[in-house]
């Protein structure tokens, strides 16, 4: 946690302190490190945009997705570790960071796994429901356009319309 190497800091009021003298209130990070992290974040943003123009294979853009998520995760890690000071936080804080990520991975893996298995057993699974939803949504969209244009045939059958 960096308490062993005593580094003297000059404060706004001109006084000098060590990290120990800070009575445990957070870790002062050199501004240079923030500059470095910020530069890395900007570079990684450029890289992720640059990679996006190529289809780097894997079928169904799998590699593009993997690379985009890898870069995003590196960026997120940089922000969390250095800007959010997680690097200097206690184990219990690390726990509270890792547990929702674990739950998230579980939910995504479970949901996608469930979908892919059911799709294989009964290919039409879910389609009936989404097609029905689409019919409703497309119908509503068409009616809105017609209403805007004043060419709505006859609304009396739908009931409950208001202006």
């Amino acid at each position, binding site marked *: 946690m960096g308490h062993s190497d005593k580094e003297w800091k000059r*404060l*706004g*009021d001109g*006084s000098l*302190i060590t990290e120990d*003298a*800070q*009575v*445990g*209130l*957070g870790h*002062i*990070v050199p*501004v240079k490190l*923030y500059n470095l992290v*910020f530069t890395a*974040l*900007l570079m990684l*943003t450029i890289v*992720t*945009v640059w990679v*996006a*123009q190529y*289809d780097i294979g894997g079928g*169904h*853009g799998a590699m*593009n*997705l993997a690379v*985009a*998520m890898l*870069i*995003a995760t590196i*960026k*997120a890690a940089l*922000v*969390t570790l*250095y*800007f*959010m*000071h997680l690097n200097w936080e206690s184990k*219990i*804080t690390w726990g*509270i*960071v890792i*547990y*929702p*990520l674990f*739950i*998230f991975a579980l*939910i*995504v893996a479970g*949901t*996608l796994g469930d*979908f*892919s298995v059911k799709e294989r057993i009964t290919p039409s699974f*879910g389609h009936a429901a*989404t097609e029905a939803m*689409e019919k409703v*949504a497309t119908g509503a*969209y068409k009616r809105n356009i017609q209403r805007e244009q004043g060419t709505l045939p006859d609304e009396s059958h739908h009931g409950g319309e208001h202006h």
Partner: protein
Amino acid sequence: MGHHESLPLGHTHFAEPEQVYHSAKFGMWVFLATEVHLFGALFCTFAVYRWRYFEDFQQFALSLNWRLGGLNTIVLLTSSYFMVRAVDAAQKGLNKKVNSFCNLTLLCALTFLVVKFFEYRAKLILHEPPIFPHSHIFYGLYFTMTGIHGLHVLLGMGAIWWLKMRAKREEFSVTYYTPVEVVGLYWHLVDVVWIYLFPLLYLLGGLA
């Protein structure tokens, strides 16, 4: 340091200023965990529909303006940098610097929302989005995810404004800067969410 007597502990039930600081910070981390659940559910929904309607989603990604999305990514990263500099200034008891860095953060946040406004206007008012099968799913997710994210930016701006006011009153010191650090944590999470939203929504279909 002898700063303890100036600490605005008030009538809290905490024994030590250290404990106040660590409890507040830990509380924010717990809140951020719930935020991960909130956005996680949305990201999961996005994953399911992208997996199911892959070709359509590629098309829709192309219909979004990656230049504006990229600009907003850089703007938000810059805001995070200014925020962390505000925290750094607060740790050193430099209230004037806290105020200036809060101003810069607010400026970035405002820029983000203005750019977002033009993007929304293009999609909602100018009728730019292509209407294809499943487009309501993509745009439903796009507006829900970026909308909830934008709401977080707006709330964050309120919190940073509050910090700025307190810094103006010289309320922060070496031994008391908890609000700056805690708001900073929240602001960085908003940045992290956007770090994932940008490639997922704007880049996966290639560059238009």
